[in-house]
């Protein structure tokens, strides 16, 4: 589970950066080049995945 969480975190951060740089614009308003709300969403999801990784890691080593 720890590694699944890590992969999810990395994927979320990569997507967040891509939204911020305007590399991707999936389901985003084409009027804006940099999709701030999508960036913030994926950055927060990435951080939550890291927290999940920490919880999963601790449980494995009591």
């Amino acid at each position, binding site marked *: 589970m720890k590694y699944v969480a890590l992969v999810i975190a990395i994927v979320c951060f990569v997507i967040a950066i891509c939204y911020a740089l305007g590399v991707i614009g999936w389901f985003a308003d084409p009027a804006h080049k940099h999709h701030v709300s999508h960036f913030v969403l994926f950055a927060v999801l990435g951080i939550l995945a890291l927290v999940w990784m920490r*919880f999963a890691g*601790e449980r494995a080593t009591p």
Partner: protein
Amino acid sequence: MSDLQAISLAILQGVSELFPVSSLGHTILVPALLHWSVNRRDPTFLAFVVVLHLGTAIALVVFYRREWVALVRALVRSIMRGRLSDERDERIAWLLVVGSIPVGILGVYLESPVRNLLGSAAYASIFLMINALIMFVGEFFRKRQHEDRGKRYKRLEAMKWIEGVAVGLAQSLALLPGISRSGASIVAGLAVDLDHEDAARYSFLLATPVIGAAALIELPRLWEGGTHVIALQALYGGILAGIAAYLSVAFLTKYFQRNDLRPFGWYCLVFGALCLWLSYKGVIS
């Protein structure tokens, strides 16, 4: 937008954001009823609305300040420890986190298309009546479960994770103009066996990060070309919305200690039906 319109919209937003009557629905229907020429897609109006939301979020943080301090401390403690405990504040803090995820994802992806598609007075009126039905159905099942069959209420911290997500998901219904965020999440809270007081408290706590984050993300709009001219209106609008929201949450937390959602349901049903009829007659659009 005149000063009087700005003041009215600010107070309307502050009150209707927390009362289970849909702020989005009211900010569509009331200007339409009064024939105000408010362009909802105008950047200056959007910037104004952002500040109203920020005022509302700040009012919620101020009202629940002691609770938020305890929740954030509990959250940080659990992350540092790397393990979840059964402590009350920690449990509620994580319930708020998992409850905010669905509305965060759906809000980012669906808010704009839904608003463009369903932003008319007719749709807002129909959804306002559906909002009333949601509250009536919620109250009917709560009464049957807890008053007729004697089932006991659950404490907020006893909620399961999946129930926290379900209440958060219900909150996403508020993307539809006319469906109330607090109404939907309070009904979902009742459906997972919370009493009115705890369901309302969870709903208001859950609303704070969502409203605050949405406002903060949109804040750069204030500095977009030309919008600085409404800075003064936005400033006093935000303060008024905050005061209205603070008084509303103070009233509602007391109200839900002894009362239920039905009066709000009747209001939404009557107001929604009236607006739908006026929309059908072409008086509002």
